[in-house]
């Protein structure tokens, strides 16, 4: 390791200058910090349920619907951890249960079993604070359909962003306005559109408004539901950049659901593959997409258009 020339010595010096500071920092740890979001055993079924439901559904039965009692086991025993600033991708086709899983995470649907612990809030599924308040502060979802996200279509785009500020007590119009417009501009929405009603925005633009809203009061958990589905390809790429910017800034635990493997590969640090409501594969994108172990994952990967 002895430098043999002055050039190498200089190089070593500049390398040392760029090297992380001596002493233990977070990045120097070999293990990740405790997760921000910790889900264990999430389960949800629709129907009366019977003793055979779990046995007869899933891979074994190749169905989500119990042949004995007709109950649909939408989600069964899903567990995962997501740390601050990390992105978990969830891949599954229609009917896989990924939509129900998102509903559970967004507290729209009650879980039959399981826990969802968010740092600083405890188990959201058992919390006594009213759901609406929790949803506002802890978990924010960016919907495919902006109306479902609780946006007001007749109000201006900037009003929809300002709502977050008003909700937390901002009483200065100038301040609320400045922040809303700044955030919209950051997400690439031109000032000339800020006062246009949200219903005049295209799908991709409306999603950006949702992202801008999320930036106002950074939630602990950010959920993205099929962010690029239905958008034109050029718009998709831009939106992905916006999503990355937002996730980088927020430091939230982000969960992205998509059936588009490329979107997941771009956005996610880790991937869960959901099939018949169960997790069939859990790994980093390289593993899941390049070396899939489960037959269903292999099928998904093989089916990509290239």
């Amino acid at each position: 390791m002895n430098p043999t020339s002055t050039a190498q010595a200089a190089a070593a010096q500049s390398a040392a200058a760029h090297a992380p500071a001596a002493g233990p920092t977070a990045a120097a740890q070999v293990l990740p910090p405790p997760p921000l979001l910790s889900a264990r055993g999430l389960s949800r079924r629709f129907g009366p349920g019977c003793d055979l439901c779990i046995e007869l559904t899933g891979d074994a039965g190749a169905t989500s619907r119990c042949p004995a009692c007709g109950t649909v086991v939408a989600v069964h025993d899903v567990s995962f951890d997501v740390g601050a600033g990390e992105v978990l991708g969830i891949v599954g086709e229609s009917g896989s249960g990924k939509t129900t899983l998102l509903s559970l995470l967004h507290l729209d649907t009650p879980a039959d079993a399981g826990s969802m612990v968010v740092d600083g809030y405890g188990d959201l599924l058992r919390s006594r604070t009213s759901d609406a308040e929790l949803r506002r502060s802890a978990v924010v979802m960016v919907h495919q359909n902006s109306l479902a996200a609780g946006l007001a279509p007749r109000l201006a785009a900037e009003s929809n962003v300002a709502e977050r500020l008003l909700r937390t007590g901002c009483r200065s119009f100038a301040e609320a306005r400045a922040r809303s417009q700044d955030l919209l501009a950051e997400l690439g929405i031109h000032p000339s559109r800020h006062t246009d009603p949200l219903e005049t925005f295209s799908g991709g633009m409306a999603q950006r408004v949702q992202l801008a809203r999320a930036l106002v009061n950074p939630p602990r958990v950010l959920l993205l539901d099929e962010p690029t589905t239905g958008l034109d390809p050029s718009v998709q790429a831009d939106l992905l950049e916006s999503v990355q910017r937002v996730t980088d800034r927020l430091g939230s635990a982000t969960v992205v659901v998509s059936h588009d493997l490329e979107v997941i590969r771009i956005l996610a640090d880790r991937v869960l593959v959901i099939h018949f409501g169960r997790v069939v594969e859990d790994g980093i994108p390289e593993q899941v997409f390049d070396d899939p172990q489960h037959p269903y994952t292999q099928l998904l990967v093989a089916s990509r258009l290239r």
Partner: protein
Amino acid sequence: MSDAPTVASLAAEHGQSEAYAYLDERTKRNVRRALLKALAIPGWQIPFDSREMPVARGWGSGGLQVTLSLVGPTDTVKVIDQGDDSSANASSMRSLISRTSGCAETTVTEEATIIQSRHRIPEIPLRGDQVLVLQVPHPEPLRRVVTNDAVALEHHAERDYTPAWLDLYDDEARHGAPRTGADYPVLVEGTTLMSPSPIPRYDVLRLGNRPHATLLGAGRRARVAALPPFTSVEPLVFDDRPLLAESAAEPCIRCGSIDSYRVQSGGRYQLAAEAGNGPWCCSDVDACRTRRNDP
């Protein structure tokens, strides 16, 4: 005072154990209890058993029930409609009240003990021994932004008025100013949102910190609300966008006042000053007369 009739003596005279001033005893108790609750929670809408009144719903049946539950034979009642004592509705209601209760009537603000009003607050300063009763067609301040009553109640319960703030923000952003003219929502004691009834902005700015009680009756929606004396009432506005009173182009043609609330004559039931094309006059007739007699 021994000559003055009492409720009991009047009732006894007529061989009635109940029913004074048109309302039956049970209704009066119901309204009075509701009013007590309303005074205990300033600005909060309290439901009551609204009765059929000889006034169409939406035309003051609530205010009338409030007045009729309070009035006694020693009271003097004034009724105004947009500041005018002589409108058909105001006159009719005043007659009904005085005939059924045996109280005195007046058009002179200073003489009244109870003043029932639609769309205005008298400009003559009221005293602590007077009571102001306002007629309210739509008591729910959130009605334009929250369509569902149950949801509106939740918002009130949590004192979460974000929908109202949002609507205000949108108006300011897209139109430069709030669109609400009359019935501008107010925050009572800084916490509870209330509809002050369709009084002009000029009067909204005068609602707070009065020496007397202000009672608001909504008959069609069967609710009352109340402002005890010296209650803080502020319009719902951003800190940097204060509410401005309406302005009139000219002084009153009768008394010459430049700071009264003036309307252009020729538009009888208009609150906004741009209706009608006639000369500008004070809307509060008695105040205008007072100024003329005592400049």
